[in-house]
């Protein structure tokens, strides 16, 4: 086919084609459920093994014990030390969202979410502190 004719055909076809680009932020892109974005932490599961901290390539994750001051309990004359409880702090500015921490966690306390809109104007807001319920409870007391 002659070149001008082909160009015209392409032009007319494109007039009726749907837009490929999306109107972000008015329409949100479809994010696959396998996507690795913000890391979520389940404080009730964490055993404080620190495997996630050791293997994090960006030095972004910290696991901090929150109940050092908790007293051991006495049951039938035996002292049982309190179960150690941990919170997790991830620096979202450092995290590269590789998901290594979720892979390495032996009790699956960490998981990837699809929340990708993490930009912020101030750096402090990027420190994502995922507290253990114990902290909030003990504060109330």
């Amino acid at each position, binding site marked *: 086919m002659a070149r001008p004719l082909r160009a015209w055909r392409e032009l007319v076809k494109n007039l009726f084609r749907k837009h490929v680009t999306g109107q972000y932020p008015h329409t949100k892109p479809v994010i696959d459920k396998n996507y690795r974005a913000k890391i979520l932490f389940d404080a009730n599961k964490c055993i404080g093994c620190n495997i996630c901290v050791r*293997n994090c390539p960006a030095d972004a994750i910290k696991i901090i014990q929150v109940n050092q001051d908790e007293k051991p309990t006495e049951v039938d004359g035996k002292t049982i030390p309190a179960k150690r409880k941990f919170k997790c702090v991830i620096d979202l500015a450092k995290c590269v969202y590789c998901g*290594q921490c979720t892979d390495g966690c032996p009790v699956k306390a960490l998981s990837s979410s699809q929340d990708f809109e993490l930009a912020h104007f101030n750096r402090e807001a990027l420190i994502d502190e995922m507290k253990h319920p114990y902290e909030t409870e003990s504060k109330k007391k």
Partner: protein
Amino acid sequence: MPKITVPLGPQHPALKEPGSFMLSLEGEEIKDAVLRLGYNHRGVEKAAEARNYVQNIYLLERVCGICSHAHATAYVHNVEEIAQLEVPQRAKAIRMIVGELERLHSHLLWLGVAGHEIGFDTLFMYSWRDRELVLDALEEISGNRVHYSMNSIGGVRRDMSNEQIKKVLGILKTLEKRIKYYITVGTEESTILARTQGVGVLPKDEALKRCATGPQGRASGVDRDVRRDNPYLLYDKVDFKVITQDSCDVFGRLVVRALEMVESCKILKQVLENMPSGDIAVKAPIKIGPGEAVNRYEAPRGEDIHYLKANGTDVPARVKVRAPTLANFESVAYMLEGDTLADAPLIIAAIDPCFSCTDRMSLVQTGTGKSGIMSFKELRAYSIEEYKKKGIDFSKL
């Protein structure tokens, strides 16, 4: 006519990354070109010595934003070789799928950039639109569009479901049609022909002398491809052609990349249709070695070489990366000479450069101990001997 020296870079709108090109002009013609790298040295190799083997997968993946899987795979191949791990077949297949999808995405990206440099922005938008399909597939398989992080030491991190396999096969069908369209456009469109034919000529003997690799070398008739010559993963089990061209110009490089995409689709189909079953990873030790290993990987831009020395601890003693752009950079000076200034950005873009990946620093200490410089001949003889030990004969090249 007086000579004028024009600096192109380190910061220049035509360059995507910092690299410096001092061009001596006589009129419009480039008479001489002096190239300099080193504006974006990130110290990746040194940083690798301070991280453990798992952390290094992610660090080395970030040597390049486009051939990220290439670097990560070359690195894990080294670790696996030293630790003598037997990687399951399914893991190899998945690594190959990601690798070939990456090649598709890289070549489509290059096609767009080349279109943009030529002044043919429609081609840029078309090819980047189609590249989205590949990125979507990668996002679904690996969880990210650019840094797939698919590799673990001893296998891959995620399995592929049957639906994913079907979906990728569907995407390939659309892509094959689009690639065919680009081949027609690329070889018939007069704008492209006028801007690429006879531009940036690199004859075969020069390409060999300057160690050009990948599509750059193949477009000058250098019939080399690590996937065929020193097969890794499952490349010895699939059927594909190594594309070469004899035109030795930018047009040849365009054709090589376009036809390579067809071959990539062919490889992908063969792997996806015959996925081996079984595990996707074996357990890896935390401490590796002692030992050393060198591995090569055919990245979209050419041969990527990684060296690793392990000393029995959980961190490597030495990591060395030779990114493909370093091999191709040498030919740019030759190609620029004799061409016009207006073609310079296109000629530079035609090697598909990754300046930041290439930036390395070397410290040569003289006067202490034994040191010396190997001539090209000696180095060649040495490497032929080394490869003979692995059962591959390169002496006839």
